């Protein structure tokens, strides 16, 4: 049994709101050809796909748009934008819709991770713990693997060429997973450093859809990089 939509007066408030924020969203350009949906890893989840999503926007079915949790399956990978004959970036549009969701209605884990990241890192461990874990693991490597006795994991090294951030999950639950990357960097002879603040590279605030939050966490990292005088930022996420 299909749904019934009465379009006596077409109201496309969400679409208009998106178009205000993203003037080149080109939602109306959609040809409904299905290329976005056929390439999207999230197609079919929550009975939604990018084509349907755009169609609901065009038909002003804002309730569906604002209610679907499909938006949280979108990782903004932009496969849709690449395939679309009109070049529509559905991910960019989804991002706007994510931001329209009241914070309390968002997936709890996602919002909490962002909130925590705004305070330092997304797991909420104290920065000192991160510094300690890095040191501890490095020591362990030196002890157990003599061939890596000169391996380093620099922290707050002023003037290092590369700044490296770190997914917060690893120092928290599987710290030895950090080591392979250290070894690679060491082997190729790269001058790098962690920082003891704003070291989390998880970028969680990209996903709840609040640009201010995302900008805040990105800026904090950027400031740290600048303070350290690094010329290149390596994002491990």
């Amino acid at each position, binding site marked *: 049994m*299909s*749904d*019934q*939509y*009465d*379009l*006596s*007066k*077409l109201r496309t408030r969400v679409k208009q709101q998106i178009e205000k924020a993203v003037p080149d969203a*080109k939602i*109306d*350009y*959609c*040809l*409904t*050809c*299905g*290329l976005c*949906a*056929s*390439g999207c890893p999230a*197609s*079919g989840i929550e009975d939604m*796909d990018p*084509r*349907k999503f755009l*169609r*609901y926007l*065009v*038909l002003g*079915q804002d309730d569906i748009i604002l209610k679907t949790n499909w938006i949280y399956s979108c990782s903004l990978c932009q496969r849709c*934008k*690449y*395939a*679309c*004959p*009109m*070049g529509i970036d559905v991910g960019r549009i989804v991002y706007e819709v994510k931001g329209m969701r009241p914070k309390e209605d968002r997936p709890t884990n996602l919002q909490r991770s962002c909130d925590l990241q705004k305070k330092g890192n997304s797991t909420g461990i104290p920065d000192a713990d991160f510094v300690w874990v890095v040191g501890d693991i490095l020591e362990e490597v030196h002890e157990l693997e003599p061939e890596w006795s000169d391996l380093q994991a620099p922290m707050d090294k002023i003037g290092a060429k590369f700044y490296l951030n770190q997914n917060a999950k690893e120092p928290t639950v599987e710290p030895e997973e950090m080591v392979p990357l250290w070894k690679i960097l060491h082997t190729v002879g790269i001058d790098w450093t962690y920082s003891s603040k704003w070291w989390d590279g998880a970028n969680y605030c990209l996903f709840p859809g609040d640009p201010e939050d995302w900008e805040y966490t990105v800026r904090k990292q950027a400031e740290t990089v600048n303070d350290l005088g690094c010329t290149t930022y390596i994002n491990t996420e």
Partner: protein
Amino acid sequence: MPKGSVLVVGGGIAGVQSALDLANSGFLVHLVEKTTAIGGKMSQLDKTFPTNDCSACILSPKLVECGRHFNINLLTLSDLVSLKGEPGSFTAVVRQRPRYIDPDKCIACGLCAEKCPKKVDDEYNLGISKRKAAFLSFPQAVPLKYAIDPDHCIWLKKPGKCGACVKVCPADAINFDDTEKEHILEVGSVVLALGFSPYDPSSLDFTGYGRLPNVVTAMEFERYLSPSGPCMGHMERPSDGKEPSRVAWLQCVGSRDINRSCHPYCSSVCCMFAIKQTVIAKEHAHGDFSSSIFFMDMRTHGKGFEDYYNRARKEGVNFHRARVHSVLQGKEEGDLRLRYVNEQGEICFEEFDMVVLSTGLEVNKQTVELAKMLELELDDDNFVKTDVFHPVSTSRPGIFVCGAAAEPKDIPQSVMEASAAAMEAGRILAPARWQETTVKDYPLERDVHAEAPRIGVFVCHCGTNISSVVDVDSVMEYAKTLPDVVFAQTNLFTCSQDTINQMVNIIKEQGLNRVVVASCSPRTHEPLFQETLRDAGLNKFLFEMANIRDQDSWVHRDEPEAATIKAKDLMRMAVARVRGENALPYNTVKVVKSALVIGGGIGGMTAALSFAGQDFPVTLIEQTDRLGGNANKLYRTWQADEVQPYLAETIKKINAHPQIDVRMNCQVSDVGGSVGHFTTQFSDGHSLIHGVAVMAVGGEAYKPEGEWNYLYGKNPNVHTLLEVDQMLIDGQTDFKQTGQAVFIHCVGSRIPERPWCSRVCCTHAIDSAVKLKDLNPEMDIFMLYRDIRTYGRRERIYQEARAKGIIFVRYDLDHLPSVNEANGKIIIQTHDPIVDSDITLHPDLLVLATAIQPRQESGNLSKFFKCAIDAHGFLLEAHMKLRPVDFATDGVYLAGLCHYPKPMEETIAQAKAAAARATIVLSQDEVPAESITAQVFDAKCTGCGVCVTICAYSAISMDEDKNVAMVNTDLCKGCGACVAGCRSDAMTLMNVGNEQLMAAVEAAFI
């Protein structure tokens, strides 16, 4: 006085058509072609839609005519490098690259190519096979002369190194010292027929093209199917030569895409191209064959196309409404796996043996360069810019354009425009007609009446086409043993220029009075050999051909001995037949140099002005009391030009022109005569003698009824597109009170009762919607459509409409929109397939895009002129592909909606084309009439009159005094119906009588 010659640039079908029309109407034509031979893209096609004709077979006679034309100067390997001057007097510089093989000496034997050691990619086969550095691009090439490719020839790169061709050439034709030549040509006007390039899909990674060998372009697939292609007509896939049994076509590759290919337009031809390929591929397949077409909107908007589409669906072609996301390596080696989403949104995978990319059309790089040199404006898509009211005029006076260089289009449309461009190019030079042409003089014909038959037989090797199967020497020796055969010889190519010259001498020296050529098809070569007889002072009807190639060596390749016996049989029959043939008169009709145009709409008026502009008197008749026809009801064109001012201006020109006689409230009541001299009676009692006629009787809007009524005529807010146009013309309505408008497409079109697409309504409806949106941006507009068919550059207006927020909702015949009313308010229920939901609309305005249908009158009129109508009631042209404005009846032409629904620019082009074709007749003092006519033996005739009633041409009447039938040879078409119908054996066709036929039959059974 302007110059009497025209420069035509481009030797594809459009350029060839333009050149022939101009040369046949009294102008000298310089035809400039950049490659070694004329024929263009059409020569590369296997079959053509919708008739499934063999492309080369229908093209070849035009190429041959072009190559042999006395007033066409064919310049191959040539480029236009500069053009100075103004309309009427241009100076063109054409640079001709060296051919390195002397065309006057080359006999096209092919030995140079056979021995040439250098193999290179064959561009004619799109690089999927190899050719030699010495080459002929294709077997039917015109000129049929080899060339040496300087980029690859070993000798030309390092003189002294190879020279194999020089050693083997029996004609001493190789000339390594050949140099570039510059031709300075004085011409009065220029026609550009620059063609297109197929879109190169290499940059579209998702297609796998270039990476997965079994992904090919449509043009490549055409070569795989073609008998002259690399697989000799056997369908094989590239990776392993396996015959594919599951093939997929991907539409819109390089079209309707502003993201990856930057071509916002629709390429117009690919939907039909793909359907045709499914049909032809199935014919080639030996076992099970399944084909799938992945498309977005099916665009079968031309004449006969929708029927073709319906037939393909019935025959099991799978049509998937989806653009394919990616082509991946399949499970089995060489197979391909497609990823796409169905209309329900489910991701699907399907395996195929082969994938064909329906690649779009784009502008040639050279077109852009040439346009820059000529200072021509291009449009946003780099096509040569024209406008709706002047569809073949460029921005520079005196330079005209036709074919795909101005917009992607199919062959019939290109041919129409080619003739239209010829009309325009010739119109400005009309005073100089026949000033620069030369007329061929034939020697006086020998009277052979009293001579005993002296038959000469020429047996052709046709290179290896015949001689590799048939023992031509034994056929020739056998010929010498037949009674009355006094001479026989074999030739490598009987049609080559040197052999033709030799044949003239032999006829004279040997005193031959009958000639037989045993070679190929009379369809392509009979006129050439007949002309050779005339050159030798023999009547051209003392000639017969035996087709020992198409009907023998080609079809009996595996049985050479039997084929040789059959060749002897065919030749012996031809000899028996020619023996009893007589010289026939070259009948002619004196041309009355005036035209009748029937129909006072845009098409008729355009045709009338085209004639009058060349100083031919025209009578234009209109059945109503108002000129303009349907154009009176149109607001604007899709390019937003208002129609009414143009119409008013056109009517003014018509009324002011001294050569145009307009008769209003006038219809045709009877027609007699034939090409060159018609006598037509009008309903107002007048009659007219005229040389040619153009039918431009228009079409009419379907009035919505029954299932398609949608409250039309019942609710005041339901209107047709034309009624909305009227509101826009009147300008009294501002549409500010219209909150919601709905347009329903295909009202009465593409349904069993009217199975054609009305072609213009998608564009018209969308343009009207855009106009409404401009007048009232607050208005919500919904378009309920089946397929959007904004073909060519009209796709831009579809995009513009979407960009403005106009919403398109697809419906199909199983889910028609339902339209009801409650308290005077319209309620529409429809279904959106994308979100699978029912939608309710409450429009203040409902607009119906109704079908265009033929007028009843056109059927009656066609009978007067003995012209055909098609199954739907539209007038039927002589050939859908290559003779789109001619009727099978000579001297009668057609234009506009009576032919098929079409927008104004196409009606104007077609009307100009009709005038161009008719001008060929009007520019002659006399036209050939049939020589093979019926003859009455008075002694046998019983005067029963059956033949009088049978004759479709009113050529037979009764001689009341003698009570016998009489044939008017001016009218007789030689069809033979009277001969078959005569109960007393009193009728015969000259040279095709019992005497000749029975002689051939008897010879067959010796």
